[in-house]
Structures are given as structure tokens and as C-alpha cells.
């Protein structure tokens, strides 16, 4: 974006300084409405290597209990004879029963190094290997779409996740107190940043989002309550206190509110239609059962909030939940599991076609495990993302193969998801 041009964003940011409302400026600037303009996609990144065998326990697999022993999930919520969902995933389960949530139980990125940081980079950059690009695939998807229609993207959290970094200036938001609309400082800083390629666009975008936040979060009970949600670090993850236990309900409520706030932005006219949010803390080397109880309850509440908050827009939405890698099929010696390969992705949304599992289940037989250790991936994660971007968001297939996911022609888009 040209920092000098009197763009809509510039006007909005100026408007924010004078306390004007967003809609006055945003509505005339919007492109003509069409079905495609309303399509929304949300990517939820679960950092730390989320254990797929706990998210969606393969209860029909005869090896599951033997491999997991005491870590086999008790009281899972059945989907069919073969798979169930973790008991904390009650909202996801209800959606699955309504045909609005599916699991992909054996997905992986192309990375096999079992390093959190390398695998997260590959997951978010969309590259075939590590260090080959410094922008995120979701940003490049927005860039591609922007040639045809206005598409805005937003990340939730204080820091910018790699998945949304790139050429397109995206919004970011985290809970906090409102900007003082009377203060001169925002306008003065806009002027001071006019030649600053980093701070200029970022501040303009931030002020625009703040203006929108006043409307988007108005229905929630008071902005002050949002302050209790804590932000994480890299990738802006949010962390719930360990749950269940005292405080667990508070954590769940905060998580649900966070999901509702995100949904609030996405329901705004001219609001983002592409969003990313990340949750930390899934690295379960020890004490896995209790740790995942807390994390999955938090995830479920965020997703519940998104679903409830989107209301009539849910039917236009697909939510993808993914992690950098799965964990070892066997329990380790310390009540947890170590870094593995294949994991479970979740797909949710009113736009989703009902169906069974996405991709094949390789089974947990010893000779089926990847390197005699991990769930063997049967589906390239990029194929999952590409299927949603192509059929739901209308991203050009050639661009998906070449620029959004470079050199990914072999990772075919999963068809018929929407």
C-alpha cells in the first residue's frame, strides 16, 4: 500500500482520531456484494504439537489402547465406530453431529524434522521446506484474491503470526482498552510515520481496527472484562489457566468471548473475511491428560464463540484447526508423548459439506507407523488448505500450486469439502 495515497485506511485512521464511526466511510467503499464476498475462512493454529490421538481418539483401532495405555482418552464423544472426539470438545462434537465439523486424522506438513519451530515455519509459510519463504500462505492467498475483490485479513493476538505476514498489510487485534478518540497523538504519529514503511501502515491499520472494535465487541459485556485474557508471545497465542479446576470456567468464558469478538469483527460490513488465531501450550511431554484437558477445553470454547458469534454468517464460514506435527503413537516414560509426525486437523463451518473423515486412516499397526513411532501421514496439510481456498474462497488453482503454496502441484487440493 502506498503510504502517501489518501486511501480508505488513511481516511479511517484520521477519522478515528476525530471519533467518527467506521460505517460512514466503510460502506460506500465496499465492493458490490456477492456470494463470494461473504465467504470467510479462519485458521486456528495450535502450537506445540497437538496430539491428534487425543483430539480424535481412534476408538475403533485395536492398537490404540495398547499403545497409549493410561493415556488413552476415557469418555470420548463418539463420532462413529472408528473415531471419537476428546470429551472436552463438546461444541465441536455438537457441530460434527450436525454435519458441520469433520476430522482429518492423519495430516502433516511436508516437514519431517520433529522440530516445533521448523515445523511451525513450514505450516505457516506454506513452503515445501523450511527457510524458503518469509511470508505466510494466508497472506499470499489474500494477495491473490485482492486482484479480484476486496479481502481484508486479521490476526488475533499482540504479535503477528507468520501465516499472515507478507506483502498485504493485515490487521491485528487483541483485547485491551479503547483508544482515546479525543487524543491528538494518533494523528500526530500518522504524520511522523508518513515515510516509515513499517510503522506507518501498521498504525493506520491498528487504528482502523480499533474503530471497528468498538462496534464488533459492543455486544459483549463491557470492554473491561476482555482485559483478563492473557496474550502469549510468538504468534500471539492465548493461554488458558490449567483447567479444569477453579478458574477453568473463567478461562472458558474468556476463550468464548475471544471467539465471539473475532466473529464480531468478521460480521462487520467491510470487516475481515480471513482470520488467524493461535493457541499455545500443546507440547505434552509430561502430564498429558491434564494438560490437554485444559487446552482442548480452551480450544473448544474459542470455536464455540466463533460459531455463536458469527450467527447467520456461520453458513459462509470454514474454520481450519491445525498443528505443526502430531506426537508419538506410544506413550513415553513420563506420562506424555514426544514429538511425532501425523496429527489431526479439524474442519468446521456452516459452509462445510457433511462427510466422514478427510483422508485415509493408516491404522496404528506397528508396520503402519511412520518410522515405527508416529501416526503415518496420509494427507499433505497443504492439500487440505488448498481445497478450502479453492472451492470456498475462490482462489485460483494455478496460483495455489505456484505462489500460495510454492512447488506444491503434487499436494492435490482435497475436493468436495464445501
Amino acid at each position, binding site marked *: 500500500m502506498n503510504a502517501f495515497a489518501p486511501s480508505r485506511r488513511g481516511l479511517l485512521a484520521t477519522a478515528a482520531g476525530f471519533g467518527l464511526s467506521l460505517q460512514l466511510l466503510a460502506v460506500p467503499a465496499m465492493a458490490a456484494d456477492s456470494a463470494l464476498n461473504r465467504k470467510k475462512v479462519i485458521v486456528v493454529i495450535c*502450537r*506445540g504439537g497437538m496430539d491428534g490421538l487425543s483430539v480424535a481418539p481412534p476408538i475403533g483401532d485395536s492398537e490404540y489402547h495398547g499403545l497409549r495405555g493410561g493415556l488413552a482418552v476415557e469418555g470420548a464423544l463418539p463420532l462413529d465406530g472408528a473415531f471419537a472426539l476428546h470429551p472436552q470438545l463438546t461444541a465441536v462434537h455438537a457441530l460434527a453431529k450436525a454435519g458441520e465439523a469433520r476430522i482429518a486424522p492423519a495430516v502433516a506438513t511436508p516437514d519431517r524434522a*520433529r*522440530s*516445533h519451530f521448523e515445523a511451525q515455519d513450514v505450516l505457516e509459510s506454506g513452503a515445501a521446506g523450511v527457510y524458503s519463504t518469509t511470508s505466510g500462505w494466508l497472506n499470499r492467498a489474500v494477495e491473490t484474491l485482492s486482484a479480484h475483490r476486496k479481502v481484508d485479513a486479521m490476526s488475533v*493476538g*499482540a*504479535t*503477528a503470526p507468520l501465516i499472515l505476514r507478507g506483502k498485504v498489510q*493485515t*490487521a*491485528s*487485534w*487483541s483485547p*485491551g*482498552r479503547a*483508544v482515546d478518540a479525543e*487524543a*491528538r*497523538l494518533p494523528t*500526530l504519529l500518522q*504524520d*511522523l*510515520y508518513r515515510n516509515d514503511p*513499517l*510503522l506507518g501502515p*501498521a*498504525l493506520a491499520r*491498528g487504528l482502523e*481496527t*480499533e474503530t471497528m472494535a468498538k462496534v464488533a465487541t459492543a455486544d459483549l459485556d463491557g470492554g473491561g472484562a476482555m*482485559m*483478563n485474557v*492473557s*496474550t*502469549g*508471545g*510468538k504468534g*500471539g497465542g492465548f493461554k488458558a*489457566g490449567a*483447567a*479444569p479446576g*477453579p*478458574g477453568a470456567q*473463567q478461562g472458558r468464558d474468556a476463550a468464548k468471548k475471544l471467539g465471539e469478538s473475532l466473529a464480531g469483527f468478521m460480521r462487520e460490513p467491510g470487516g475481515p473475511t480471513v482470520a488467524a488465531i493461535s493457541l*499455545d501450550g500443546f*507440547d505434552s*511431554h*509430561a*502430564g498429558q491428560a*491434564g494438560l490437554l*484437558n*485444559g487446552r482442548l477445553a480452551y480450544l473448544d470454547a474459542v470455536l464455540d464463540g466463533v460459531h455463536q458469534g458469527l450467527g447467520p454468517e456461520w453458513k459462509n464460514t470454514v474454520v481450519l484447526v491445525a498443528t505443526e506435527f502430531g506426537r508419538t503413537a506410544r506413550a*513415553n*516414560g*513420563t506420562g*506424555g508423548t*514426544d*514429538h511425532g509426525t501425523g496429527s489431526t486437523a479439524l474442519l468446521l463451518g456452516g459452509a462445510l459439506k457433511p462427510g466422514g473423515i478427510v483422508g485415509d486412516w493408516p491404522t496404528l499397526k506397528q508396520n503402519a507407523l511412520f*518410522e515405527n513411532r508416529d501416526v503415518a501421514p496420509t494427507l499433505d496439510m497443504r492439500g487440505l488448505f488448498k481445497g478450502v481456498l479453492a472451492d470456498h474462497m475462490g482462489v485460483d488453482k494455478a496460483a495455489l500450486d505456484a505462489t500460495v503454496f510454492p512447488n506444491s502441484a503434487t499436494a492435490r487440493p482435497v475436493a468436495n469439502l464445501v
Partner: protein
Amino acid sequence: MALANQDLMAAIAVTRFGLGAKPGELAAARSDPQGFLKTQIRRTGADQPPGQPASTAQRMAEFRDFRKERREERLEKAADTRPASSATGADPAMMDAARPNRREAADPVKQIGNVLRKDIAADFGARVELAATTDAAFRERWALFWANHFTVSATKPIAGTVVGPFEAEAIRPHVFGRFGDLLDAVETHPAMLTYLDQIQSVGPDSPAAEFVKNGRGRGRGAGLFGGQLQQTAQRTPGLNENLAREIMELHTVGVNGGYTQADVTEFARAMTGLSIGAERDGAYGTAVFREQAHEPGVRTVMKVRYDGDGRRQTAQILADLAAKPQTAQFVCGKIARHFVADDPPPALVARLTDAWMRSGGDLTVVAETLVSAPEAWDPVPGKFKTPYEFIVSSFRAAGAQPVGFQQLGPILTSLGQKPFSAPSPKGWAEDAQSWAAPDAIVKRMQFAQTFSQNVVRDRDPKQLAADALGERLTPDTAKAIARAESRPEGFALLLMSPEFQRR
């Protein structure tokens, strides 16, 4: 590369290498900017934060009591009403005022939780106080670099209680010594052993594991592992490879350092037995080696064989990792990225790596090489401040210091850098792209507004700007400050100026 003039070099010295200028600091650095930094390097290590620090062992004992009390309380409650669920580790640092008071002050769980929370807040507050006031800010930045390189994070509740003691005991004394000694102190420290799950890792064929497998260990056997296994005595003890992997990937050779999954597993086997002491041997919260939990036999890690002396295997492997050229290359790349630019000049990395290898990883030599390197003095600032750096440098610019953790915690959390809570063992991000998100800039602006109103009062923001940035102050910013309608507005413009946000 032509070196900048003396005034500009002084400004670079105190902002890029230090933690931002205090009033008067630029003048102190002016006559010899490089010498100003070099005199801060000292073999005895970094400064210790003010106050009376607790030891790691004391903190761990406190946390143990907290858990014990809480377990008892839960059992009582379970007896009273319906069964309570099996929670693990509620975070004392998270139990803030937002939580409704369940009971009165007599509640022992709440009491110990409060003490721990205050301890953690005091540790962090002392560290910020040191950073905000020290005359040797390069020395402190150097220590902070290593604390982040060897992250222990409060994202694991028990680890949060010992981040402060860990930095004091394992990091600060060694940051200008040999890297190998720093590495050894860090990886065998109870805080790191706890944070990266080493304490429960047991050799699958060790006497201790055999004991449990044979069914003799139920109940009684738990004591063999210093009580670590008490809650989970049902399972077969075995390996946990978390620490082994992160030592290689994050602390030494790096992810492209040439190791395999087999090397990770072998290293994990070698480290079995390394744990923390039990209550009954009076060594709770200190590092111990338990021969009976050690995986017997010869280990091969990165093509080197380590003989069967279990007690020495870990130290030998760590020493070999510390000496590898991949380690020098990886860590020097990080030093250059931290101090100079997100994408640092290769010549600088090569210069540091060379100094590292020639000196056997002598961090005094590496620090001196960094200060002398012409590539490190590019007049264009290559780094965007992290929230911690921004807050600390704001206090320094104001000549102020935080009066309480209450001021700091919420601010840093809202800026994405919750105290002592790096999101992963990789530590905090260092790059502009991570920290300059739109929301983050808005929140920095909000901090600058509030902070300026509280600290400036009758002081001249033009003078504060000259004191804080010296030759780095641009005409645009100077003009904006001069035109400000109030002193706080002028100071807020200084803090948010492009050149103050960078270093």
C-alpha cells in the same frame, strides 16, 4: 564501512548495545564509545538484580507446599460435595485479582499462592529495576540475550517460580566466561531440568525401570525417583527426549547442525539419571544424578562414542556440543541478529564465529569482537525494539524506575511479552515482523500516552529527546516534539518516534 562520527557512535553505543540512554549517559559515552562498552565486559559475569534472591531450592520447596495444600483442599472439597476433577498445576502467577476471593485469607492454598506470585513479581521487578537504572547497560543486554537463548518460562507453572533464581544462578555468573561452562551450568540446573521435562526421564533398561516393571515398584518404588513418580506410579518409566532435542536444536548446533532422531534419543538415554533431589535426602530442588535411573551402556551421539560412565556422559556430550563449529555459527548468528539486524551482515557473523572458534568459545572475546566490529555500527538502526526493550528504554529516557510490578505486568502482557512467559523454549522473537503488528503499535501508543502523563510533569521534552537520542534524533521528530501542545504529548511523541522505536 565508514564509522559514524563520535556523537552518533555514542548514541548507537547506548541505544543499540545498551538499553537506551539515561539523561547524561550519552555524554559519558562520547569520548570513547567503544571503550565505554568494553569496560562493561567483565569476567565475573553480569550484575545481579537488587534485593535478596531466593534460591531455586527454596522456591521449589514453596511450590511443593503449595501443591500439597491445594491437593488436600481439593480432597476436602471432594468429600464435601461432588467429586472434583483432577487438575494439574494452576498457575499461581495467573491467580490475580480478577479471580473472585473464594475464601478468606486463612486459606493456605491462597496464602502460598500469594507468596509465590509476589516472589515471581519481585524477581521480575528487580530485573527491570536493574535494567532501568544500571550504568552498565551493555552488560545487562548481554545477560538478557543469554537468558532468552536459554529460555525457562513460566508457561510451566513450577518453572515460573524459578526463572529469577535460574538466571541468577546459572546465567549471570557465566555470560562472560566460556560458553561450555555456561552450557553446563544451564542444562544441569534444576529449573531447566524441570522446564524441559528431564526430571522424570528414566532409562528404559535401568535398574529403576526394571524394578517397576517387575511389579515390585508399586507404591514403594516411587521413592526411587525422588517422589517424582508418585502421581503416576502406574505407568512404566521411560525416556523423555524433550531436553535432549532442545539442547541440540535451540541451545547448541541448531536444527541444521547435523544430528538425527537417533542422536536425540541417544542423548536422552545418556542424560537419564539427571534429575532433582527428593525431600527425604534433603536435596529437594537441587540437581542430582541417580545411577539407578540411568540407562546403562555406551552411547553414540553425532558419531562420537561415550563410554559407560553414566555420571560423566552428559558433561562429555555437552562439552563436545559446545565445541562444535556448528554451535559457534548458530549462536553467533543469533548474537548478530539480536544486536545488529534481523538479517545481519554475513561478515559480522563470520567475524564473531571466527573469534568464538579461536578463543574456544570465550564469551568475553566474542563480546569484545562484537563491539569492535565495524558492521555493528551501521548508522541505520536495524532493530525494532521488543516490548521489554521499549518499556525499559522509556524508563531510562525519563530517568525513572518502575515503582511496582503492578505497573509492568499488564503493560508487557498487552504488548505480547508477558513477564517471564516466553511462549516456547525458543524464547521471545527478536524480529520486527513479530513485534510491529498493528495492534501492538496501537498498544505501544497507549502506553506512551499514559506513561508520559505520569512521568513528565514539568520537564522539557526537547531536552529529554536530546538526552535520549542525541545524534539519532531526526529533524522531523524534533520538530514534532517542539510543536507539541503539552509536555506529555511531546514526550509521548519521542517514545513513539521511529528512531526511539528502533535501535
